[in-house]
């Protein structure tokens, strides 16, 4: 497996550091506004919970034109007493370097894994650079299960607004859970802790020229850990609040990368997921509490417009994928008025399974196939938003649980159609 060639200064730093217990990685691209807070939270977390461990912070940057790298280099906690720290604190090493390869989060992670391997780290943690809600406790919750409890992979568990994370709630979580039988609630959460052994294993895989190098990295890490029988857990981290998202981010491109990576993994691990039936919970660390979340504005009318445009224009493609029966059901949904629009979970499950089967049979170019899912996804999302409008967080989780049950119940259809 070809490795990343470090820049000379990074190589020298690695030679100076020699070995580390914990490597904390932050992928970034123009995050000057928020990365200072993330670096401080990490420093405080390490100082507070792992004062006697040798730690390295790695910022793997995608060529930021703002001061991201400079902010990482100069940010430090001036007054440890302010966070009630009076014991001796080991100095924290910092490496801030641009990554090489396809621009994307996955390529940034690859550099972090390489650093972890070079330093023979026991634990590696990765956190997003645009987090506003990260606290020092996140570091404890992502490191300790691996360092002290023998787990290989700690996925995050957040409280998010009921309308947020819809790709996770309606596709990735139910599908991953039904396939591999583990209830990892946020398989594409973005903030993970994992063992040095698992980081080395990730590096043995030749995926860095695929969509894994972009948004697909999160689902790839989680699935690879589960499918290869690494010990997986999850840690409750509280609320996840990001910096304002990029308004130009293209939903269908995101959907393509995440769902494409999930379907690719189904190809790789079909001998693992086929025999699995039902699912089991994974151990959860952390003290769960209710958090106040920011208001999320939604425009279901626009979503339903795109769904109906899809119905009008993509009927041939959808019929080829879904078959006449399920397409007929989707067609009936198009005739409903906005306020009565409901996309049944059973139908949605079959839609996702049919897309997975079509992907497997290579009936259409991958990008066309998955991007043609966008109007259906928006239809399902609009329906979900209207259904849960008056519901509290627990009831919403109940609805997601019902969808997951549908995915598990219909799995036989997927297995028998997968030839």
């Amino acid at each position, binding site marked *: 497996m070809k490795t990343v060639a470090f820049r000379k200064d990074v190589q020298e730093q690695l030679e100076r550091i020699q070995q580390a217990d914990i490597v904390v990685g932050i992928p970034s691209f123009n995050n000057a506004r928020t990365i200072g807070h993330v670096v401080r939270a990490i420093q405080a977390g390490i100082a507070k919970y792992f004062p006697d461990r040798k730690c390295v912070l790695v910022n793997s940057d995608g060529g930021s034109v703002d001061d991201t790298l400079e902010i990482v280099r100069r940010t430090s906690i001036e007054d440890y007493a302010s966070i009630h720290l009076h014991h001796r604190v080991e100095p924290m090493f910092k490496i801030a370097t641009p990554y090489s390869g396809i621009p994307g989060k996955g390529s940034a992670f690859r550099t972090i894994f390489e650093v972890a391997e070079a330093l023979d780290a026991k634990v590696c943690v990765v956190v997003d650079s645009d987090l506003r809600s990260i606290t020092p406790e996140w570091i404890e919750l992502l490191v300790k299960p691996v360092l002290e409890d023998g787990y290989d992979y700690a996925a995050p568990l957040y409280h*998010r607004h009921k*309308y*947020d*994370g*819809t*790709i*996770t709630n309606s596709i990735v979580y139910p599908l991953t859970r039904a396939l591999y039988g583990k209830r990892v609630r946020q398989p*594409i959460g*973005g903030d993970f802790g994992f063992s040095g052994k698992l980081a080395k294993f990730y590096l043995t895989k030749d995926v860095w020229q695929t969509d894994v190098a972009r*948004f697909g990295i999160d689902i790839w890490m989680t699935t690879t850990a589960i499918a290869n029988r690494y010990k997986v857990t999850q840690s409750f981290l509280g609320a996840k609040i*990001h910096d304002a*998202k990029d308004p130009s981010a293209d*939903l*269908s491109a*995101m*959907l393509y990368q*995440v769902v494409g990576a999930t379907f690719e993994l189904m190809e790789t691990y079909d001998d693992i997921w086929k025999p699995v039936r039902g699912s089991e919970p994974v151990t959860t660390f952390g003290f769960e509490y209710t958090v106040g979340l920011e*208001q*999320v*504005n*939604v*425009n279901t*009318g*626009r979503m339903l*417009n*795109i769904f109906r*445009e*899809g119905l*009008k*224009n*993509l009927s041939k*493609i959808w019929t080829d994928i879904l078959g006449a029966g399920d397409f007929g059901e989707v067609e009936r949904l198009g005739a409903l008025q906005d306020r009565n629009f409901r996309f049944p979970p059973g139908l949605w499950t079959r839609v996702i399974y049919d897309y997975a089967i079509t992907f497997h*049979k*290579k*009936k*259409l*170019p991958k*990008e*066309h196939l998955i*991007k*043609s899912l*966008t*109007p259906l996804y928006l239809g399902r*999302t609009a329906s979900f938003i209207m259904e849960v409008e008056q519901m509290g967080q627990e009831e919403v989780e109940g609805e997601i649980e019902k969808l997951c049950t549908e995915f598990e119940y219909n799995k036989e259809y997927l297995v028998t159609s997968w030839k």
Partner: protein
Amino acid sequence: MTDFLNLILEPLQEVFAKFRTFMPNLLAMLVILSMGILAARVLRAVLVRFLMAIKFDSWSDRMGVTTLLRKGDLWAKPSLALGAIFFWSLIILVLMTGLSALKVHAIDQLVEQFFLYLPRVFSAVLILIIGYVFAGFVSRAVLIAAVNSGYHYAKLLAEALRLLLTILILAMVLEQLQVAPGIVLAAFSIVFGGIVIALAISFGVAGIDAAKRMIERETAEKHAKDTKDDIEHL
């Protein structure tokens, strides 16, 4: 009397002598034809079996080749159709080789012209196949992207693009085959230019109301989009 007989016999002897020289060529042609037809049949059978072994029919289904054949009212399996094309290409080749064995000047010239034209036919077929696949791919990509952006006339846009690409490809094919290249170029320019002018006129003059409705609809859509949407999909 002898002179008279010679007058009759000489042409006959000449014909016989020519026939004697021609006979081996004729025999050679017949042998080439019969052996060629036999070889073509065997090669067709081998090719069809090979295509079936590599599941060419399923691949054709996936790539839309079968649909294309059905559209052309061709109902044979893609592997058999390809086998037939291969067989008849070999037969034409064998026929030309056989005819050239006759060593008749006029036929030799015809065969030479045929072989000189073959590369053009091959490149024209290649342009047609690649062009068809490319036009379908681009048109579908545009359709999906336009739908995902909520554009109302997605299908119209995609089909218009497919039509333009098809015209362009057909013009390229005819130009490659050197079928009245001047006329093809003129026709292509007229059709392309005509489409652009027709669009300009329909939008600018004849379809003022339609254009107005479209713009109003797009504006209304834009206002709807402007309604704040903070949802985080990931």
